[in-house]
Each structure stands twice: as structure tokens, then as C-alpha cells.
């Protein structure tokens, strides 16, 4: 018999259903992106598939009215949970003027929206870690009740900025949560060729802060870890390093061919643990997700994504002459 694990976390049945809806929305949006890419309609996709559970679980643990985030390029689940819409993501994918992230200037996956307190991200990995620490520093100076949440891939945790950012945050006891989404690969490089530590969270000791490793396929485990870290942060106890372990179910991006460096069996094996499936099963076992709820859900997501796609495809590009704008403030 499946035990109800969300109640003790303070989550209602409605909360977890909403959590699941968000995970599924992320998955379905992502799947649609691939279809559009393969149809030649959008030039590039970088995927969240396999990481939705950790992304949505984490976002739900934040105060989405106050906290700041610096999501990385796979965080479709994070940004949806924070309030970005499927339509906005489609506008980004089609690089249209209305894309709130960059007006079509940046590639998909380069999120950012001031209205959501979501920092603008770039392509060079890990630069966002010090930025998130800077938000934490500002919060401390201004004595604001803000948690700064940042994510990155496990491969990216080998960049100098990871070390420098975490060290700064820990010395100054800043309200920062660094979540490493360990999906086992950095493009073609498997985990064991990226790091020699057992767990990415082992790095926390070097900063004198808690380091936690959780199952990234379990949104509730991630929710709990991020919630605790946020509580610590709000209590001025400093930063936390969280590692969420899962698997990248798609190639690195639409430009990648993963068959060169990993075999199908490995991917199939990982798919069995896919958080979208396992969490759905959990909800079904508890009778929260019934067949009818599920088919309504799928139906409404499909409509949402269809409309988003149609809208974005029809939307305009920015004016060519607009490229001269916003180099400096006026």
C-alpha cells in the first residue's frame, strides 16, 4: 500500500495534483518542442525531460511571491512553476518579439523575467551561481526576507564559478540555495569522467555548509530538501547545496546525437524511473489522479500548448532595426 507522503510535508491533495500538472505541462511542452524542431519549425530545443520532478518540486518549495531564482537552461519545470506560461515558452522557441525572456534575442532555454524575479541567464555555464549569491548579499544588506535559488548541471559544478560562488555565500552566510541537477551526463561526458567524488553534495563540506543528495525523480523529496534549505536561509543560517539525482532522457539538445556515447538500454532503464511516471503512479495509488482527472488534464494541456504554438508561430519577429536598441540605458 502506498503511504501518503505529501500530507506530512504540508501539501494538500490539490497541491500535489497541481505539482503533477506542472510536471506534465513541462513534459508536454518539451515534447512539442521536439516535434516542432523535427518539422523544421524551430531551430533548437534543449530539454527538461527526466528532470521535471526535481524542477517543479523545488519551485513549489520557494516563496513564489518573494524569492529570486536563477534557473539554468533545462529548467522548463522551474520556470513554468514560477509563472512563465506555455505561450511565453513557445514565443521563446520561435524567437518572437513578445518572448519575455529576451524578445527573441537569445536561444531557447535562456530564461529570465524581472516580473518573476527570475535572473536573465546566458550560455556560458555556471556564471549564474555568483549572480544568485549577489542576490543573497543584497537581501542580507537590505534585510529582506528573500531566498535566492540557483540551479546548474553536475558537469557545470566543475567550473571555477561554482567554487567561488559557494565559498562567498558560505563565508557571508547568505540565503542561497544551490541545486545541482545531476542527470549523469555533460553532453557526452558521463559522470565518472566529470568528477571523482561520490556525490556532488560532498562538495558542501569544503564550504562548511549542509550538502544533501536526493532522488531527483521524487518531487516530494526535492520539495522537502529545498523547503528545509529555504527555512535555513530565512533563519540566516546560510546556504545549502542540494544535489538531485536523475537522468537526461533526451539527447543533450536537438543538435546532439546521443547514440554515439550511450546505449539505448541505459536510456530505457532510466525511463522506468522517470518522475513523471512514478509520481503519476503515486497519485493514482492514492486515488488523487483518476482516469478522468488524467484525461481532462491531458486534454487541457494539449489545448494550452496548441494555442500557445499557434499564437507563437503567428507572432512577429522583432524589427531588424531593433538590434541597435538596449545596448546601454537611455
Amino acid at each position: 500500500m502506498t503511504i501518503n507522503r505529501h500530507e506530512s510535508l504540508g501539501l494538500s491533495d490539490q497541491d500535489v495534483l497541481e505539482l503533477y500538472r506542472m510536471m506534465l505541462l513541462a513534459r508536454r511542452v518539451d515534447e512539442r518542442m521536439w516535434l516542432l524542431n523535427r518539422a523544421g519549425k524551430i531551430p533548437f530545443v534543449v530539454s527538461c525531460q527526466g528532470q521535471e520532478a526535481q524542477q517543479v518540486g523545488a519551485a513549489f518549495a520557494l516563496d513564489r511571491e518573494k524569492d529570486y531564482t536563477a534557473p539554468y537552461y533545462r529548467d522548463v519545470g522551474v520556470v513554468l512553476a514560477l509563472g512563465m506560461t506555455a505561450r511565453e515558452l513557445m514565443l521563446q522557441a520561435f524567437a518572437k518579439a513578445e518572448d519575455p525572456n529576451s524578445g527573441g534575442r537569445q536561444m531557447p532555454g535562456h530564461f529570465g523575467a524581472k516580473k518573476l524575479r527570475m535572473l536573465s541567464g546566458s550560455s556560458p555555464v555556471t556564471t549564474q551561481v555568483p549572480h544568485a549569491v549577489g542576490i543573497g548579499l543584497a537581501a542580507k544588506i537590505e534585510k529582506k526576507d528573500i531566498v535566492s535559488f540557483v540551479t546548474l548541471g553536475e558537469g557545470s559544478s566543475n567550473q571555477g564559478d561554482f567554487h567561488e560562488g559557494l565559498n562567498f555565500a558560505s563565508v557571508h552566510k547568505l540565503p542561497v540555495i544551490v541545486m545541482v541537477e545531476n542527470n549523469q551526463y555533460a553532453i557526452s561526458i558521463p559522470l565518472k569522467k566529470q568528477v571523482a567524488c561520490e556525490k556532488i553534495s560532498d562538495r558542501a563540506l569544503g564550504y562548511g555548509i549542509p550538502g544533501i543528495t536526493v532522488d531527483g525523480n521524487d518531487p516530494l523529496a526535492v520539495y522537502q530538501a529545498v523547503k528545509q534549505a529555504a527555512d535555513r536561509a530565512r533563519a540566516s543560517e546560510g546556504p545549502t547545496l542540494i544535489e538531485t539525482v536523475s537522468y537526461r532522457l533526451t539527447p543533450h539538445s536537438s543538435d546532439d546525437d546521443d547514440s554515439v556515447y550511450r546505449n539505448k538500454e541505459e536510456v530505457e532503464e532510466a525511463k522506468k524511473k522517470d518522475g513523471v511516471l512514478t509520481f503519476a503512479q503515486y497519485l493514482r495509488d492514492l486515488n488523487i489522479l483518476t482516469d478522468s482527472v488524467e484525461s481532462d488534464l491531458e486534454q487541457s494541456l494539449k489545448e494550452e500548448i496548441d494555442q500557445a504554438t499557434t499564437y507563437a508561430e503567428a507572432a512577429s519577429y522583432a524589427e531588424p532595426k531593433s538590434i541597435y536598441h538596449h545596448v546601454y540605458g537611455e
Partner: protein
Amino acid sequence: MAVLSYIQAITKALAEEMKRDEKVFVLGEDVGVRGGVFRATNGLYEQFGEERVIDTPLAESAIAGVGIGAAMYGMRPVAEMQFADFILPAVNQIISEAAKMRYRSNNDWTCPITIRAPYGGGVHGALYHSQSIEAVFANQPGLKIVMPATPRDAKGLLKSAIRDPDPVLFFEHKRAYRMLKEEVPETDELIPIGEADVKREGSDITVITYGLCVHFALEAANNLAEEGIDAHILDLRTIYPLDQDAIIKAASKTGKVLLITEDNKEGSILGEVAAIISEHCLFDLDAPIQRIAGPDVPAMPYAPPLEKEFMVNKDKIEQAMRSLAEF
């Protein structure tokens, strides 16, 4: 008006801005209790406390990157790099992040950070405490680079940099710190970023330069005045983006142009100045555009005779100005 040294002018600008706007704070290595290794932040820790005068761990990419994050939040961080030479670990944060923040977010996010760093040679600092590093950054739209030559400019420009809505690199010549003194207005004087300044009106030859070389050029000009050579001296002050109009005007005025930098010659910012002139006022020129610069060797050595051989100085400049006048 009080007489201030160049470094006092810097400190005063910082103190005034921190007093005016509590979003302004300082961070860097040894900027707190120690007041900076050059003492540019002297007294600020006592006046504003350790939350606004922050001693950071020894990590320049974090100093820049954390500053960038705080600037995105709406603070006005003033980051110090202990020496300009040590800004290099922070290049990715500065070029990929600070410079591109406004543009890449389509004007949604901004990054009003000021990054100060002492640069320049002639202080027995050897290869890594003497460099002019500006050319590394002088090709990055989104950034502004200011290099003041006088205490008054230093104060007025630093205040403008701190209030600027975009990232500004602010390079201070470390030999100027205690060597240069002048009267600086007590008032809240803001000197606009992006405007070059005629430091001497003249009609025979035009010298275009910036930083400490402005003084060498002025001294040389005084000597040459006695010989009847009247030099026009333009101080670029902001070296990126350049003040094209001022350059064109100054070059056209005399038709004989000497460009001076302390940096290595090839690839210095003088190339761009020469390009602007040869694009816009080629037919006003009466002589080839001359350049005086450091030699194309990695950086100045430590041993005094070697350092001297490297450094641009008044004599080298005076000679070049004389031959240009005679051209």
C-alpha cells in the same frame, strides 16, 4: 575647493556616493579593515560598517559575479580589483554577463556595477602589477571604460560611474594616486562619461592620449611652448566607447596627430583612434598618424633599467611631438 591627491579624490567620491545612496556599497579584497592595499577605501569601513564595505574572499570572478547579481537586484556595487592585472579571472563575468545583461534580456534586467582597478606602470611592479589592461575590454558593447587623468576628473567620473545605469570599468593609474594633486570642487560635481576633454588648446600639433600620459604630454607641451610649438592635447577620459566627435575635431584642428598610450603598441586602443581619424578626416591630415606606446613585449620587467626602457615618458613624448611639429 580643497587640494586632493588622485587617490583622495577617489576615496571622497566613494564616501560621498555611499552617503548619498544607501544602495551603494563596496566589495573587494582587503577593502575593509585594511582600507585597500593602496588605501583607496580608507575610512569607509569605519564610516559605513562591514555590511557596506565588504572584505571578500580572494576570488575575482566571484567579486565581479556577486557584484553583478547585487546590481541586478538594484544595488550599486563598487567592486575593487586589487590590481588591474588581476581582473583577468573575472573576464567571463564582465564580458559575458555584465556587458550583455541589458541587451540579452531586451532591457528587462540591468547591471549598474562599477569595477575599479589600479593599472599602469613605473612603480616597480614588474609584469603583473604594471599592466594596462583596457584593450582586453575595449571591444565589448554594453561596457563603458573610464580612465581619468586628474584628481578632479577621477572624482567626477567615479561619481558618474556609480550612478550610471550600466557596467563601468574604472581604471585608476596607481602612479597617479599620490603623484597628482589639484583643487577639486567640494560640490557634487558629475563629469559625464563618454566625453573627452581638451586639456590644452593648441594649434600646431594634436596629441590624443589618456591616463598618466596626459601629464607627460602636458609637461612636454610646456617645454615645447618655449620652442614655439603649440600643442593641442585631448584627454580621452572614456576610452570605450570613444568620443568620436572630439577625436575628429581635435585631429582636424592641427592635421598632425600623435597618439600616446602606456599599453603595448599593437592592438592598443590607439588603433581605434587612428581608424576613426583615417575614416573621417584623412584629408585634413598633414602628416602620418604617429603613435607612442609601450613596446610589444608582454609587460614591463622589474629591474629598474628594464622598466625604464619600457615606460613611455615625457622625454620620449617630447621628442615625438617635436618631430611631428617639424614634419
